[in-house]
């Protein structure tokens, strides 16, 4: 179980896309992430490095034949941070819906007491 915690690192648009993609996967190939998100090699490398240094992403390098293949996956800490971020977003949304619902009720109450 996770607590709601808004995460500025995940909140950045490009990193949100990367982390969302990785959250749905056990692991994903570097080229797959790059192509699906329409990012350049350098941008993706930079964002993955940031996420890796925060401990959110694990990078795995291996060889298939003579070709190097790089894949990325969310670390347990990254998955937890993502869950907490999602929880925080849902809380913001729920609070806003609650406020929107409560406002007309409060106005109606004021109307009754004002008579």
């Amino acid at each position: 179980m996770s607590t709601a915690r808004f995460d500025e690192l995940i909140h950045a648009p490009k990193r949100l896309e990367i982390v969302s993609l990785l959250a749905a996967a056990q692991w994903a190939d570097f080229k797959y992430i790059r192509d699906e998100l329409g990012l350049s090699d350098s941008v993706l490398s930079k964002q993955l490095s940031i996420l890796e240094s925060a401990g959110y992403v694990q990078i795995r390098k291996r060889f298939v034949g003579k070709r190097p293949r790089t894949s990325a996956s969310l670390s347990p800490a990254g998955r937890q941070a993502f869950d907490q971020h999602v929880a925080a977003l849902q809380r913001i949304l729920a609070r806003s819906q609650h406020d929107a619902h409560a406002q007309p009720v409060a106005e109606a109450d004021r109307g009754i007491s004002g008579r």
Partner: protein
Amino acid sequence: MSDAQQPQPAGTETTATEAAAELAEIQRRQEQVIKAVLVPVWYWWALAAPIVAIGAARDSRNLVVQAIVIPLAVLVMAVLIGAAIPEVRRRVKVHSTPQTDGRLVVAIFGMIVLVDVVIISLAASLSAAHVPYPVTIGCAAGAAVLVITGPLVVWYAHKLMLSQARQQLNDAPQAGGSTP
């Protein structure tokens, strides 16, 4: 905001509209991953064609035709099954639970058994009734079952994985917490 900014409890500036957009983006990316691992409809037609070819070759009773068509058809099927699916899996592996995997294995195994049962029982019955081309008809029926049930299994897999992904998203806020 710097790209390398460290995580910190914040979010007070994030509006409900932004939060909704972010959640929609997360859901969209989940669906994108799930779609990537599902095989396309043409895959089932490509698997069905060699099955019919094997049946027709068997009914031709021509050893040369059988010697060429059957190994070729088996090779095509082996390439499709053995190479196409791992190729997709080499790019991305969906985050799934053992329950989801178990259900999918049962669905795929059930489809294979159904196709085999249709081919064998129909071919044997037609052969016993001295109907011409019994194996071809049996294989064509089995291929038809494959073409129909294959996309159904894919649809089921899509539904299962999507509901699992949504469940994970819905589970997130239940613990309460420290959002400002």
